[in-house]
């Protein structure tokens, strides 16, 4: 007994713990650090666009290449270390095992290993700021030859190498973590947890895991090939006759007849599924939270499962819609456009399902409009706002105008960044009791929601207009020989900068809420949201699932919710 207790203590306390909850929380803290840095970088960018002469703390005056380094690092931090790490690795480690009635991940040691690899990857990435030349300047997509040749610009030497090594490590960690997640879902489900009794979050993690295996192994290969182009004089991505800074690359001894197009295909074969990797867990969570807070079963559970699977399959087949103007064959453009339009159908189906749930729902038993529910509303709003511009960008002829303008920046910041972030906020407010035993502060949470919602729309919605006006992204300043064209956008960009500052400051409320609630929050009890899924069950040792995941008000003579593992539902 005593030995057992000691072992438990060790598992929880040790630096190299294999306890899935501790690892999950550590992943989330890592993401919190990354999102904080990424936000500060984006504020520096916003300030630089409108007042380039301003001296910033830490940075001083930002040169144009400094702006591009900020862009690259902001994108990389947010996409990899926030939108992938938090919803997939963080919450899956924290929640997934208990949601399927398991006591631990299938491979706990591997889970710990992936976390430490991810931390190493973040460290390597951030180190790029401190090497000569600074961080890479080629954007998070790092198209070669700009990324393949050190002489192509400041930051493209050691900084670029560090980026590639960091992402290589990240890919490896993500693949390990996906293997772990899939193994856990396949082999650790408790008795009675059939596939169609799994909560939709688990379905999302299942599809996400498969997508990660495909996407990140391709990215891993691409990164390895690019590193070999840079250091082993291979020529996967560098064409013959490449001239940089007026100097012909001496590649006489190598087979330098590569093509940058190969990188574009490999990168976007990763890059597009990556969007779904980031957003699928949010979709699952949205369904679950809507069921809980409207006290109704998920509307069309099988339909939701089917659309998740369809989005996963289609998600692997649409990468070319990032490449309509890249020099890809125009017939391929047609094929990718039609596939992309097709993926809008299951996505729209999900949105309609959620709206139906809202329409027939009831008030939550806990609170009329709890904070996680508000953030779920926010997710829906951004998902709709960002999703509706998707079909426009999927039409190659319209994308040929909008590609790489602020319109695209608005699109993906609404659908990926804001929808993703709001869903993560919902998850934190909802599952906070599982991390600390306490609830987060409701009033602070509501202020946080409304200010963030206003700030996010004020920041990203006007970008549509900058994009329609033709302003390309990645422009450090609105100057140059066509400056009358660009400088007419300065007032709009100034407004966006003010809004971005407002949005970022609103997040201080969240940090304050986290710090306050972790110590002084209201004790949550065992099942504060009166939820049905197993992560809220008090004891999983004898767990046996006998019903579906969303039995809210299923039968009118029973209590308003029945846990999945409750054998004899209590009579009301």
């Amino acid at each position, binding site marked *: 007994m005593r030995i057992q207790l000691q072992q438990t203590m060790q598992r929880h306390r040790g630096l190299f713990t294999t306890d899935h909850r501790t690892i999950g929380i550590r992943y989330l803290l890592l993401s919190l650090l990354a999102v904080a840095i990424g936000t500060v970088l984006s504020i520096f960018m916003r300030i630089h666009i409108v007042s380039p002469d301003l001296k910033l703390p830490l940075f001083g005056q930002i040169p144009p290449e400094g702006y591009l380094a900020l862009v690259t690092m902001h994108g990389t931090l947010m996409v990899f270390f926030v939108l992938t790490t938090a919803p997939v690795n963080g919450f899956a480690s924290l929640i997934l095992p208990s949601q399927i009635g398991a006591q631990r991940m299938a491979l706990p040691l591997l889970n710990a290993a992936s976390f430490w690899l991810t931390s190493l990857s973040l460290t390597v990435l951030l180190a790029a700021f401190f090497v000569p030349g600074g961080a890479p300047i080629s954007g998070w997509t790092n198209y070669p030859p*700009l990324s393949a040749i050190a002489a192509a610009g400041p930051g493209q030497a050691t900084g670029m190498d560090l980026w590639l090594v960091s992402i290589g490590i990240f890919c490896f960690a993500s693949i390990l973590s996906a293997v772990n997640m899939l193994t856990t879902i396949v082999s650790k489900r408790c008795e009675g947890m059939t596939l169609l009794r799994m909560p939709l979050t688990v379905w999302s993690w299942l599809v996400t895991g498969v997508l990660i295996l495909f996407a990140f192994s391709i990215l891993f290969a691409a990164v390895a090939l690019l590193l070999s182009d840079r250091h082993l004089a291979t020529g996967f991505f560098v064409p013959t*006759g490449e001239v940089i800074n007026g100097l012909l690359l001496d590649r006489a001894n190598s087979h330098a007849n590569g093509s940058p197009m190969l990188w574009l295909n490999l990168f976007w074969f990763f890059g597009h599924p990556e969007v779904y990797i980031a957003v699928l867990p949010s979709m699952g969570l949205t369904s679950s939270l809507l069921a809980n807070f409207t006290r109704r079963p998920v509307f069309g559970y099988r339909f939701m499962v089917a659309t998740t699977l369809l989005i996963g399959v289609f998600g692997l087949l649409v990468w070319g819609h990032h490449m309509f103007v890249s*020099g890809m064959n125009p017939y391929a453009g047609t094929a990718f456009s039609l596939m992309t*339009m097709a993926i809008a159908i299951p996505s729209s189906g999900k949105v309609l399902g959620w709206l139906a749930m809202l329409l027939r729902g009831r008030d939550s038993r806990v609170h009329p409009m709890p904070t996680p529910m508000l953030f779920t509303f926010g997710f829906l709003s951004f998902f709709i706002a960002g999703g509706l511009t998707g079909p426009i960008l999927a039409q*190659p002829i319209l994308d040929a105008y909008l590609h790489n303008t602020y319109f695209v920046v608005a699109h993906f910041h609404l659908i990926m960044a804001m929808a993703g972030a709001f869903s993560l906020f919902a998850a934190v407010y909802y599952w906070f009791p599982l991390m600390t035993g306490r609830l987060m502060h409701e009033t602070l949470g509501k202020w946080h929601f409304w200010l963030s919602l206003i700030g996010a729309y004020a920041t990203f919605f006007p970008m549509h207009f900058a994009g329609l006006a033709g302003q390309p992204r990645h*422009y450090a300043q609105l100057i140059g020989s066509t400056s009358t064209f660009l400088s007419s956008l300065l007032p709009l960009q100034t407004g966006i900068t003010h809004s971005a500052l407002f949005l970022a400051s609103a997040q201080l409320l969240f940090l304050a809420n986290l710090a306050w609630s972790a110590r002084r929050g209201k004790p949550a009890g065992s099942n504060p949201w009166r939820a049905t899924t197993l992560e809220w069950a008090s004891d999983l040792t004898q767990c046996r699932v006998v019903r579906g995941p969303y039995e809210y008000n299923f039968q009118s003579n029973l209590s308003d919710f029945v846990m999945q593992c409750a054998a004899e539902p209590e009579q009301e």
Partner: protein
Amino acid sequence: MSAIFGLIPLALSTDRVWWMPSNGALHGLAIDHLMWWNLAILSALFVLAHILLITALFRSRPLKLHHSDGQQEEESRDRGRKVADKLWKSELILLFALTLLYTWMAISAQRLWATIRYQGAAPQALQVEVTGEQFQWYFRYPGTDAAFGLTRPELINAPAGNPLGIDRTDPHSTDDIISSILVLPAGREVDLNLRSIDVIHGFFIPGMRLKQNAVPGMPMHIHFTPSIPGDYAILCSQVCGLGHARMQTHLRVVSNDEYLTWLASHAPKPIEGATR
């Protein structure tokens, strides 16, 4: 909020910020039309969905308690089933309507894409070579012999006046005109031969509704017909290095006569006593 404050002076100061810059290309009208319809329909859907969302957000939905006898319970269960049935049907109908909408978008856009991009330029189209290079666009006209001189990467030497690496021993190169702005006659189709010598650049003329990447090692053609004379911005739309934002120039669309005069005034003059 402050974005709104930013928008007020903007709305007063310029007339073109809510929409694309004025179109000057023959194919642009159809694109603008399609863009307008797409944005109008999708904005309407955005508003509709948000009306539903906001209704749900501010609606009070008191819980009905279920202490009732068997018959009432049976009735309420029946009602619930009917409501769910109706919702399910309307969801499917709406999804079908959205599918039709997406199909219309796909078809209309593909028809336009096919007309503009599936075929190359007509043989009599004006030939201009566009070269992207960190951080400059160069335009080369073939001159009177209607043929471009050869270029070789090893000859590229911008300080010595040969940024494109033109092989001066090739007779076709003697009358080539190199310019840093693009001058085109209105109403004549132009076939751009797009290339890059270093990294990927994005050749973007917002006023011509035209964008195509210039990829090193992969020359590409893109064609269009400028129809309205004027001055149009040319930008780089693919991040290409530290000077990316400065990589801008102009397209001047002029009458045919002006174009011919411009060509004549820029034709290279043989240097007295120079030898190849």
